[in-house]
């Protein structure tokens, strides 16, 4: 019988024989779907986020570098203090998506060239893929998840984006909305050109720019 932690019913993954119990789960190369299904079926609980990073090079435990130590940070995310262990080389997008489960923030280019990962820090838009989490400090981070009302209702900006059919495929939408949030909080009645300028750091490969601008202008009317 294999180590129970590694036994994943319904998957074609076998345990890694040479691994120490309890750590070998990190070495499994499985599709995420097979792995998550296995976890659900077996009732196993992965208490650490490490399995999410297991397929990510540079972060695997078998190649530690100097200073490869997670440190506990208290981040201010969407008005809540979130305590999370963070590696020195971890970007804010990684922390949000893979450690805090805030997957509304999208990772696309991972190079600060597309805007899908845009979040608002202290009122300013920032590419979370190009920000080290350790450099965020106590500043106030807002993501798309932070926009919903107390009863889960949509933020007026989100509603305006729906009403104007802003998104096409929708992948860049969280970033477009966060840029709009920062714009309308600083300038509630922008001109269309000001809106264009404020959203210029967010690419849309569907080319739905005019629809997005219509959405921003509608949100501004409602504001």
């Amino acid at each position: 019988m294999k180590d129970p932690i590694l036994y994943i019913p319904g998957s074609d993954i076998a345990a890694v024989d040479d691994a120490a119990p309890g750590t070998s789960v990190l070495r499994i190369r499985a599709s995420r779907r097979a792995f998550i299904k296995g976890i659900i079926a077996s009732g196993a609980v992965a208490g650490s986020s490490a399995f999410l990073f297991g397929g990510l090079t540079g972060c695997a435990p078998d190649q530690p570098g100097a200073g490869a130590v997670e440190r506990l940070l208290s981040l201010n995310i969407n008005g809540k203090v979130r305590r999370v262990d963070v590696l020195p080389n971890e970007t804010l997008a990684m922390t949000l998506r893979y450690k805090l489960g805030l997957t509304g923030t999208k990772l696309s280019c991972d190079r600060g060239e597309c805007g899908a990962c845009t979040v608002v820090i202290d009122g300013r838009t920032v590419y979370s893929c190009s920000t080290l989490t350790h450099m965020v400090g106590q500043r106030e981070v807002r993501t798309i998840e932070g926009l919903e009302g107390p009863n889960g209702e949509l933020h007026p900006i989100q509603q305006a984006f729906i009403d104007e059919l802003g998104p096409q495929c929708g992948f860049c939408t969280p970033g477009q909305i966060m840029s709009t949030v920062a714009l309308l909080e600083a300038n509630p009645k922008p001109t269309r050109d000001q809106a264009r300028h404020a959203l210029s750091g967010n690419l849309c490969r569907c080319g739905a720019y005019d629809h997005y601008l219509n959405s921003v202008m509608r949100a501004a009317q409602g504001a």
Partner: protein
Amino acid sequence: MSKDMMPMFELFQPTDLSGALDLVERYGADGWKVAGGQDSLDWLKDRAKRTKAVIDLTRIAEMKGIRETADGLEIGALTTLTEIEESSLIREKFALLAGAASRVASPQIRNVGTIGGNVSQDARCWYYRGGMDCYRAGGSTCYADTPQGMNREHCLFGADRCVAVSPSDTAPALVALDASMVIQNADGERVVAAEDFFIGPQVDIERMTVLQADDILTAIRIPNTWANATFYFEKVADRKTWDFALVNIAAAMRVSGGTIEDIRIVAGGVECVPRRLSVVENVVKGSAKNADTAKLAGGSASRGAIPLNYNQFKIPLLENLVMRAIRDA
């Protein structure tokens, strides 16, 4: 596109300049200074360069903010491009710099990107950025200056093995404003004119500026010499957002009674350093500020240019930008 992590490094976050100077002295070339991180993190993600230690400068309060001094302004190197764009002090006196800062990259990048980082950023030649062993990376060839090399963005002037250009939008503005750079290391402080801060491949092919590994650029000083002068800035790039200048132009001039009495005019994207167009300055100084002078100035701007296979278009582009600067400023 991979969504992986950067290779591991140690992260230091000093809260004052002396702490940072200790670290850069201790780590030397193995210590990577980060401010906005918009140049740095790409190098590390792409594995084109690696580092043992990253030194986060952003907690050093003494390197932030814009101060008025007896003879001008002092801008902390950590001041973001957005702060420069929005600063009333800079907009009033040195609108040239505010305008240049507003054209850098994208809003998100300007929100974290610093003036110190913008002038210290590395060459944007994609062969070099791609991790190839070119001259600038310590190798013995240039991949851009070959018959098949894609060199549309590369230089017209000053090629010496490397044909990369100065990518910064604020650098030409700072040279035009006769700014100076305040640099600190363990031995103390030195002040270097912006014009001498940038170096070409003939001086050191592996660096774009005089900054050594143990130096920190702490501030930029702009003298009142050109305060409230007549300014012109224009950047031409493939896209309005993100892209680096194909050519940009920054000019500061004193015009009196329709005559250009004095001028400094500088172009980016045409040489490894911001190129001060001395020939143009000499042509227009003392002349009437009109279309004829502008045309003459434009024609003189490209004197000595040696284009590569795919960047001939930069010659008329530079000439036209100079012409517009003189005519429309």
